[in-house]
């Protein structure tokens, strides 16, 4: 397991997830792409703000 392999691994995960593909790792879990819509939210001090939408990478562990 050398650094070239790790770099390639990171790149593959990044590229696939960016294309909204799910990447399964047997024995660990899977990486998924998730889009979060903009949401309205209230801070404790009463300010109401609209949070921008967001794209995220999430990991779902295997059970």
């Amino acid at each position, binding site marked *: *397991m*050398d650094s*070239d*392999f*790790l*770099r*390639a*691994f*990171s*790149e*593959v*995960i*990044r590229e*696939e*997830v*960016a*294309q*909204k*593909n*799910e*990447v*399964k*790792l*047997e*024995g*660990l*879990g*899977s*990486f998924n*792409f998730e889009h979060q*819509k*903009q*949401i*309205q*939210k*209230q801070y404790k001090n009463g*300010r*109401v*703000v*609209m*949070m*921008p*939408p*967001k*794209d*995220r*990478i*999430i*990991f779902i*562990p*295997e059970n």
Partner: protein
Amino acid sequence: MAIDKDQLISLLVEKTGSGPEDVDRQLSQLIFRIRNAAEQGKSFEIEGLGTFNLENDQLQFTPDDVLETEINNKYTGMKPIELIGAFKGADVDAGDIEITGPPPVERPKTEAEIEKERWSFDETSAAEQARIEKAVFGKTFDDADEEIPEAPSETVEAPEAVEPKGDPVVRKQEAVPESDEDPIGKVLTVAAVALVLAVAGWLIYEWGFTGSYTMSDQNSLQNQTVQTRTSPREVQVSTVDVTGGQAADGSEPIQSAGVTLGDDEAISEPPSRYGLTGEINNSISTGYTIVVHSLNLEKARAIKEMLHAEGFRVMIMDAVVNGSTYYRVGLGQFPSIEAAQQASNQLPEKFQNDNFIKRF
């Protein structure tokens, strides 16, 4: 689409150039080591990807900042927008449509629509917001921070800009000079000052952030507007020139930004590793670039020629999106996302709102 182990291995074989057995072995080893570290309560970090650790008996993954930014590149840099006054009315409407109105209201609209609404709302309310913020004295100016330092240079000009409104107020004050403690007078003064500041702020915003027309254009534009506003008083025509001069002063930073861009070009020819202009430096293997177009190969090539003739450092990258290949035209080579973001502010206006930063 889900990538299973076989597909993952073939992708890794493509990337690394080693054989499938070797990749399989290394992948199993990696998975084993991640699990091992997690079971021992340690975290396992992969550079450029993120960190795995065990939390409540569940394996958790926290993406690296760089990865997070890249995945989120469509929305990077967007900030929460404060909802005030008029906009709340719109929310009430939305609440009526949905039977229950919990705080996270998601409207059934396309993203593009929502974004458009967002930004148009942002612009129209900017002046209003500035006014409200300034009316509340003693409050700190969160959002208006950039505008404050410039404000002093505009104070001479600003009162004239709102002359039609400011005038009656001033006269009223003169009419009742002895009623210094009159609260109404004070309130009027405060309101006038707030209005002046708001207009000044808006004007600065206009010049400072959308300044792509030339300086002479700006001046004539400025002179026109000021003249029409102050026309009732001929005396003020002389001061119009002063404001014109100040406008020029105020817009100087923009001009100098343009100059430094040119300088960069001159300097970049022999050594500069990274930059927006000049020739592509092939010795740079990784970095960031500002993508301004995504199209087919011929069009991308044509645009590359055009932009290169304008002095930009242009590169074409191919990307597979939903099964078809696009050719992305990127400008500049930058060592970091921040540097690329900074440079993207200097791009011609047509690219200003329509670009994203990508790693190469």
